[in-house]
């Protein structure tokens, strides 16, 4: 069964005069960890927001476990959860107060939510005693761990991770990556992971899509991509497939913004 199926998705933003996605077409089977790597502004987050039912594509369709994200958003929402690059919380509230709010929205009993989230946080090295402190007093890495716990205690079958490790300190980054790796081994959850980090994509993802300027340039297993372009790392794959330096593409995206 396919967890994600996207057909000919196009999206542009009139105000910014930007083509965010161009003819995106891909399928992710259930249980796969699918990575999307690309520079800033290449369309990764736009795609995640479409799959999260927060954005409507101009053309094309996207389904999550056969449910159309535009026509049946409620069915999709029950199956997914998401971690974004910014740990979006009510920062004055504690981790637990934020998670309790999420538990109410997803219909998870409070006690069950507390137990599950504490177990998830513990496995990422989050100190339990800080669970009831306002989030604004926690480090960025700790906040991101709480965001991951929030996305998982609702038992999603599709997890959308939008640059979950960007901006984290090296230790937090490793702990989050280890956790995702463990999750992939122990469960049959489907994960869509967007990242800038080539090594992260290579370690965690079964298949990788390279995105640039809103379009997929190549989709395959990391090893096959390297073989196909006759190079040793994914950054070189990016250069060969786009004919551009990674930094150059990032600069273009910043100029567009």
């Amino acid at each position, binding site marked *: 069964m396919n967890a994600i199926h996207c057909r000919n998705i196009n999206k542009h*933003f*009139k*105000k910014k005069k930007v083509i*965010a996605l161009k003819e995106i077409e891909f399928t992710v089977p259930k249980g796969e960890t699918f990575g999307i790597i690309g520079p800033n502004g290449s369309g990764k987050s*736009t795609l995640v*927001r479409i799959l*999260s*039912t*927060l*954005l*409507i594509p101009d053309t094309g369709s996207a389904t999550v476990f056969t449910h159309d994200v535009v026509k049946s958003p*409620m069915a999709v*929402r*029950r199956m*997914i959860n*998401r971690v*974004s690059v*910014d740990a*979006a*919380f*009510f*920062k*004055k*509230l504690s981790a637990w*107060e934020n998670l*309790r*709010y*999420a*538990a*109410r*929205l*997803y*219909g998870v009993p409070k006690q069950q939510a507390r137990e599950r989230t504490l177990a998830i946080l513990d496995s990422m090295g989050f100190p339990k005693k800080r669970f009831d402190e*306002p989030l604004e007093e926690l480090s960025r890495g700790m906040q991101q761990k709480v965001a991951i716990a929030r996305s998982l205690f609702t038992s999603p079958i599709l997890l959308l991770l939008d640059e979950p490790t960007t901006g984290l300190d090296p230790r937090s980054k490793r702990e989050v990556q280890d956790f995702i790796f463990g999750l992939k081994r122990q469960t049959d959850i489907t994960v869509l992971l967007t990242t800038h980090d080539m090594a992260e994509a290579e370690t965690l993802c079964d298949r990788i899509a390279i995105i640039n300027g809103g379009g997929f340039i190549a989709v395959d297993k990391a090893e096959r991509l390297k073989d196909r372009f006759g190079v040793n790392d994914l950054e070189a794959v990016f250069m060969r497939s786009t004919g551009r330096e990674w930094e150059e593409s990032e600069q273009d995206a910043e100029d567009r913004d």
Partner: protein
Amino acid sequence: MRARTEIVSTLGFLERNLSLVKRYLGWEIVFMTYNIVNALTIGFIGVTQGKQFVMYLTIGALIWGFLSVLFHEISESVAWERWEGTIEYTFMAPIHRFTQLFGSCLFAIVYGLIRTVLILLAVALFLGLSLKGADLGAAFVVLVVSGLSFIGLGLVAAILPLMSTEKGAQATHIMEAVILLVSGVYYDVSVLPKWLQPLSAFSPATYSLRALRGALLEGQSLAELWPTVLLLLAIGVLLIPLGLIAFNQAEIYAKRTGKLKRNG
């Protein structure tokens, strides 16, 4: 099962907002003190004119306080989540939009009532007000149906921040200011310039204040106030579904244009 989840979710909004009130307790005390002082200063203006006029002004201050809390809490719920950065998480949760908005309304009603009662007690203590001869039952019914119409107005206003982040929030403040001006909160609408007077007919607050003053100052019964109560009820019944439909349309627009996201 789904209905239970929706009810629990509604409580989630109430619980979340109460937690935020606790965390911002310092500011709550500051705002409460300011509102009490504000109501008192307005009440003192009428002291030289007699108790009846003090009551007239105080009712205006209290009711406007209550209705503006309702309006603010609902109309700014979207703008506020945008600033906090949680808007995407709330909108991608598997709950109906009605549940989300109803949760915000429920909190606004509870919060507004508590605030109004506290201000009323403080004002009564300072100004020695008496409600002898007032029809409190009729006043309560008027307050409830007025709440409905203001919830409807709040829902209509809530679409503005959804469509345009900053301009939307600015527009809701202007809307509130116009309602304050034309509704006869501290004066009879007959003192307004002729060209402005027709606008007062479009504000539900005009009818709320008229009916509440009738019940509290003149002891008018529900039977006497019935036409106004019915009118307020009709405004609420019309505006609430209208607000929900408009909100749904605005959400689709925000999803098409990419505006359903956090600020910054």
